């Protein structure tokens, strides 16, 4: 008889986590999320590989939502979001326990994500301006919902694209993702007061744009 049980089942926890996600439970309740994110650095320091899937599950919707507004389309957003977490993992592998324990997770992850967004924008800028809808991945089964989704995203894409990058980033991180000003400042390396004014000016610009649209 084979004595494989030990080696096969040693990481049951890991695959259990994955299954939750595969079944589409969509993550944990928002109220659990805050405390869970706070505890993640400690868990990561103790068991990096075991806790990493939880890091992804807790932050993926926020990162994806923000990146979706900061890149050109859903395809780029999926790529950038995926690459962000892969880089997060690689970085964690190089950090010692103390450094991991003291990580400000969300700003740190967003620093990585914003870098990737910038690189993506730079490489896209070299090519001719392609339509935003372009290679969009469909997420809705019925055409009407998909059309509405595309229209909403396009509308906001165009408005946000009219903002200077720092304002666009600050508005998206604050009002779409829900990051506090201080965390945005940590992510972008700008001061908190500058961040506040970026958000304020960005919103003012958006208001003007929307007024112009309806005129």
């Amino acid at each position, binding site marked *: 008889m084979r004595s494989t049980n030990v*080696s096969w089942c040693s990481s049951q926890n890991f695959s259990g986590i994955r299954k939750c996600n595969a079944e589409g439970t969509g993550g944990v309740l928002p109220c659990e999320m805050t405390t869970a994110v706070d505890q993640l650095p400690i868990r990561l320091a103790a068991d990096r590989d075991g806790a990493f*899937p939880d890091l992804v599950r807790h932050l993926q919707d926020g990162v994806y939502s923000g990146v979706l507004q900061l890149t050109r389309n859903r395809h780029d957003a999926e790529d950038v979001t*995926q690459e962000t977490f892969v880089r997060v993992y690689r970085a964690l592998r190089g950090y010692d326990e103390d450094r991991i324990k003291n990580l400000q997770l969300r700003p740190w992850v967003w620093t990585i994500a914003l870098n990737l967004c910038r690189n993506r924008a730079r490489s896209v800028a070299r090519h001719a301006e392609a339509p935003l809808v372009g290679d969009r991945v469909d997420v809705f089964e019925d055409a009407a919902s998909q059309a509405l989704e595309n229209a909403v995203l396009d509308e906001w894409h165009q408005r946000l694209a009219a903002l200077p990058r720092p304002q666009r980033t600050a508005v998206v991180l604050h009002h779409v993702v829900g990051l506090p000003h201080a965390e945005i400042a940590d992510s972008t390396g700008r001061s908190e007061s500058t961040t506040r004014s970026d958000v304020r000016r960005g919103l003012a610009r958006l208001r003007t744009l929307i007024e112009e649209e309806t005129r």
Partner: protein
Amino acid sequence: MTSDEPILEGLAALQRTAPVDLLDRVLLGADLADSYTEIEGPTGRAFVAWNGRGVTTFVPVEAVGTRDAFEARHPRAASFVDAPPDALSRHLELAIETGRLGGLPVDLSSLGDFQRKVLQKCAEIPPGEIRPYGWIAREIDNPGAVRAVGTALGRNPVPVLIPCHRVVRTDGRIGNYAYGSPMKRQLLEHEGLDPDAIEIAARRGVRLVGSDTTGIYCFPTCSHAKRITDTHRVEFRSEEDAEADGYRACKVCRPAA
């Protein structure tokens, strides 16, 4: 200020849910999860899993059952794909065809040092040849660890590819196999060995054979031993017997310390 409200609502309504397969893709990208597929092995269908570093798992389909069962017992997350990447696919086919790893990358990084050494040594045994557990223990400078070598081979995550079926009992009998001794016999037969003849010779107490023209003794399945003609073939029960008769150990199969 009041006119900001629809804007804030509009922005808040831009929250989306990440794609359902994002975590899987991240774990694959971070080498925390494996891809796997089904291929034709020497004794039937097999599941084979890999990550960016190489093949991590090889297991007969009949020993596992369904894909769900495979995923449930796999030590990491695993996602099914139709075929391995081209380069890996070529190396896999070649490894199965030739019985040698060749350029096939195998990821043993999740294993302990001892088991890794055992498996790396095992991978050196050429197809169509067998070695006793004690040989591996001696070759990895741990001659007392015969039993531990057996355990390490029993937990070989990539059987067939790393040929633990080529390692037999010290008395020369074929012995156990993770997927049952019939499969071990089948694999050896597939490589041109005669399992019945091996068992019979073992029962007669034959451990080593020598050539009276060269004065060298080998394991019976060593490629040099196979070339010895019957008239010049000498059988030994132990290396002491062979040495006592003035024979020296083969430098290729290294039957003695």
